[in-house]
């Protein structure tokens, strides 16, 4: 399938000399939720800014829906809605005037029915005549989303959509984002909350120091790079790992009362059966067993550490 966004060898060096992007290649597939994950200063906002036309690109090329973002900027930008990281909006205007203005900027004729739908979807309808400055922070953020959706974009960029947002609103936004995806909108979100990427994304890209170091389906990523840990709670404490068990990747913990078995969730399924056989043969009795899969956060931290 032709990617809806295709970024090739994109570089960006700011006037200060800071190299924000070092040859980024990235394809976004139509209809997916793509999470761009990276620490602060990794280049997430710069990358989004370039695709949306706010930051001047360095070398390289970008197409959106097949349209070059420089030569054919009108067609490219018409497809995109952008929700910026900061709360940027005209505070003195009403909610509906703000949203209607965004639609007009994209060259579309006023469409009160569309504005009404967007405001209702975001639970902003009863605030439509309030000036934006009278709203709470969470509501203001919704106004930004409504503005980005006013021109019916095919692609929605959410730059740190839930930074500083309370848990309830965060859940709320996640379900709204899923609903948009179900309507066929491609969604690219940046975040440094790994929980968010884990919860939302179909695919994950990890950016660090201006380079995309990995893009992968989320499930695949967690399967490939995820480690599993099985903790065996022993009936009787051990002083050392018994010799017959030395072939397994085992460590003693909790004063000898626990054995911790680390295994690769993808390839070592059969290792568990062998371990239990050896445990029974060695006469070691178990009280309890539990397993734990590493989170995306651990994978992420591990990847960044590997590279530094």
């Amino acid at each position: 399938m032709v990617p809806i966004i295709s970024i090739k060898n994109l570089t960006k060096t700011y006037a200060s000399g800071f190299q924000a992007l070092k040859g980024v290649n990235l394809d976004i597939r139509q209809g997916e939720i793509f999470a761009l994950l990276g620490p602060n200063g990794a280049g997430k906002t710069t990358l989004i800014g370039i695709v949306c036309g706010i930051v001047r690109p360095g070398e390289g090329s970008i197409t959106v829906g097949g349209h070059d973002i420089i030569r054919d900027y009108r067609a490219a930008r018409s497809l995109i809605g952008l929700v910026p990281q900061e709360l940027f909006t005209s505070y003195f205007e009403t909610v509906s005037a703000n949203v209607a203005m965004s639609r007009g900027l994209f060259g579309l004729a006023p469409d009160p029915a569309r504005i009404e739908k967007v405001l209702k979807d975001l639970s902003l309808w009863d605030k439509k005549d309030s000036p934006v400055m009278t709203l709470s922070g969470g509501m203001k953020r919704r106004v930004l989303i409504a503005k980005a959706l006013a021109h019916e974009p095919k692609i929605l960029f959410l730059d740190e959509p839930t930074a500083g947002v309370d848990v309830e609103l965060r859940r709320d936004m996640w379900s709204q984002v899923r609903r948009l995806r179900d309507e066929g909108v491609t969604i690219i979100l940046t975040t440094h909350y790994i929980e968010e990427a884990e919860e939302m994304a179909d695919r994950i890209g990890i950016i660090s120091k201006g380079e995309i170091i990995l893009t992968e389906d989320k499930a695949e990523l967690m399967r490939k790079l995820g480690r599993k840990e099985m903790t065996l709670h022993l009936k009787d404490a051990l002083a050392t790992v018994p010799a017959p068990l030395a072939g397994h990747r085992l460590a003693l913990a909790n004063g000898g009362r626990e054995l911790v078995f680390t295994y690769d969730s993808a390839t070592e399924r059969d290792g568990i059966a062998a371990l239990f056989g050896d445990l029974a043969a060695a006469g070691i009795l178990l009280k309890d067993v539990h397993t734990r899969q590493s989170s995306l956060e651990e994978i992420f931290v591990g990847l960044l550490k590997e590279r530094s």
Partner: protein
Amino acid sequence: MNIEAIRTLYRFEMARTLRTPTQSIVSPVISTSLYFVVFGSAIGSRIQEIGGVNYGSFIVPGLIMLSLLTQSISNAAFGIYMPRFSGTIYEVLSAPISSLEAVIAYVGAAASKSVMLGLVILVTSLLFVPMTIVHPFWMVVFIVLSAFTFSLLGFIIGIWAESWERLELVPQLVVTPLTFLGGSFYSIDMLPPFWQKVSLFNPVVYLISCLRWSFFGKADVSIAASLAVIVAFLAVCLGVVAWIFRTGYRLKN
């Protein structure tokens, strides 16, 4: 051409004016009235006619030009500085709008406001002094051209400024003095010969002179020279704006 976007941006800018009528209409009317009270009645009644025009009437074109220039600059500068300062400029930059369309909307709105203001001042002056307008067509041409040109200058200042202080710098330190010394309140004929020569280097002299000509049929300098100065200034401002958008200067980093 994204006409809908120009219309949207223009309306949004105009709405800002209408939301703050005190700042945009009441305060210029009051300050103009004060000029008429002080210069027109209190002092003006003791000043003899200038070129057959009573002093109160004589200062009207200068007063209009004074407000037109300072308001054009501050409207346009504020209009673009504010979204840069607050960050809302992202929306214009990411919309399918060309630089030309953005300039037409921002500068058009700023110029419209100052033209409206000029007309308000003209109407206010009718309450205080008798007025005739010999060349109404040219009056409108000069008012619109000056408003548009100085709104472009304001737009440039609004992009160049990186602080509120800088935003005020050019209007306060350059334009206001040039306007006062440009014959708002006197004819440059009244100056000693040396200062008459010096005045000819002040572009505002040409603007006030041609506007005064459209009212009273008498000018300090030739109309052709005035038009040439306005058009040259307009061309310079257009060139700078084109350069700003080509390079993204202080708009896109």
